[in-house]
């Protein structure tokens, strides 16, 4: 009698269990979509909650990595072959998030440029810089790629401060600065890693 009960349990309850835990292809695709959605949310929330402060912002590739991460999520989503209504929405969301993150990266770049400008300006206008320090300040400003800055006032400030620092240098130091700036420019063009490379958006 006990054996009969066991067999019955095995047939009824156990069968049910087996049916519930079995992984069908459709359900696994759904899981992936969930996972993508969850990862996207977590990452975006993490980035959105990150404070961007003028004094602490630096080229740390954080946003760029996030963009890459979201982009990868988008690629993963493309690989999902199940016909799910959430996919287009999620796709659209990913595209929107990437755009927003790129925008954020651009702001972060400008914020960094603003911080650099403030730091250099403060140091230079204190008036106790020797020529070598002035060169360092000039090169620090030279790291900013003004073509990536859409804020005109900031652009003008950076350029005028650079001109001011350049004018304060002696003739021999001007030559040095020009050579360094030239190599900086050449490095930027050739994409070869340089001592003082011009910062790109990918670094933010």
């Amino acid at each position: 009698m006990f054996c009969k009960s066991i067999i019955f349990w095995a047939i009824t309850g156990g069968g049910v269990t087996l049916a519930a835990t079995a992984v069908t292809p459709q359900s696994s695709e759904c899981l992936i979509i969930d996972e993508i959605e969850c990862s996207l949310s977590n990452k975006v929330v993490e980035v959105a909650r990150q404070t961007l402060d003028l004094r602490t912002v630096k080229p740390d590739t954080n946003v760029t990595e996030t963009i890459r991460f979201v982009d990868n999520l988008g690629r993963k989503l493309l690989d999902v072959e199940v016909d799910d209504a959430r996919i287009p929405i999620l796709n659209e969301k990913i595209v929107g998030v990437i755009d927003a993150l790129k925008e954020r990266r651009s702001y972060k770049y400008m914020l960094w440029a603003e911080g650099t400008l403030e730091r250099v300006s403060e140091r230079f206008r204190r008036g106790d810089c020797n020529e070598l320090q002035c060169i360092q300040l000039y090169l620090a400003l030279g790291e900013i790629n003004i073509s990536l800055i859409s804020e005109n006032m900031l652009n003008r400030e950076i350029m005028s401060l650079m001109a001011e620092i350049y004018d304060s240098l002696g003739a021999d130091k001007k030559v040095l600065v020009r050579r360094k700036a030239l190599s900086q420019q050449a490095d930027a063009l050739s994409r070869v890693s340089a001592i003082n490379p011009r910062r790109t958006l990918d670094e933010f």
Partner: protein
Amino acid sequence: MSFRGLWSVVIALFAVQLATGQNSPQSTLNVGGVVFSRPLVLRSDFVASDVLRRFMVRSKFSSPERMARYIGTHPGVGMNWFGLDYVKDCMRYVKGELLVAPSPKLKGGRILEVAEGFDRFGGSRFPNGSVIMTKKVHFWEREFEINYRQAMQKWVSKEVAHNPEYYRGRYSNEYIEKCVSSVKNGGYVRTNPIDVNGVMCEFHHCVGTKKIEVLSYKDHRMRDTISSKGHGSGSKFAGGGDMTWQQKPNIGKVWSASAARWVSAAGIDLVLSSAALIAAETRDKNDYIVNAGSVAAAYLSATITESVMVNAFSLSAGTTPAWFGSFFVGIGGVASWLASGVYFVVRSAVMYGWSEYQREQARRVENACRLSEQRMRQLVFAEAIQDNSDKLMCLIRR
């Protein structure tokens, strides 16, 4: 200094030179309330060079005083025709150190003899008969001293010869007789007067540079004794009476002449610089005020400098109001040069200070604008980043 500024300074100097170079000599000279003037009559044996003749005619000198006044105020001009000692005399005459207009001496030392009486004793005579004697200072040339002494001897000889009875009892009879006979023969006694006691009289002269004094002997008959009053070697003219010492540094005259020159210079400078400001379309009234203030400060400094210099070193006086002026006339007094330098230094310093002040103000405003712009940019960035964060959150929650 900008080119425009430099050019206006040059024009100003030129104008100053023109304005101040036209000081016409006065026809009369007022000394101690006595006004005197005398026509200049050249002797027939005087042969002046053509240049000098033209100069004389052009200048319309009618008296040695006018001529001395002109040369004294234009030493550079005088140096072209006359000897240095004459020019110096004229300068001293203008300053009041010399009350007698000197006889014009050409460069070679030849004296231009003038009207009768003028060269009687190398000095001059007031219309009322008062005799003016000139003082001597220790740096005076030996030649002058000799001339002076000879002139005095000549004059006293003539005076005594014409009035022998008057001087009897004052000078020795022997001296009086000598005078009469010498003058009759067309000469004079070549010694100083000898009084009744047989003592030779000394013509008075002062020695010293610090105290500028002028002797004035009121009585043309020399009745009075010149008392030394502790100055110099003293005088022992025969007879009693007293000698009047008149301290006539004529500082007022020097100051007024100096002030007049600098007033005209500063006035022209003010007019031209104001015109330049107007031409530059300067609208800030402070620019005009500071410009006028700098001219006033420069004027005061220059006048005071020149006066102090002239008081301290009388021969340093010149007539050129500016160093640029000396380029035209060839000579200028050290005091004038120094005063001109002070004028332009003060003027430039004030204007430089003003422009620096304006620049500093502009720098402050610019800095304030820069900080405002910076704060505004930072606010804009903060807002944009916040919007971006909201946008991301919104995308996720959608």
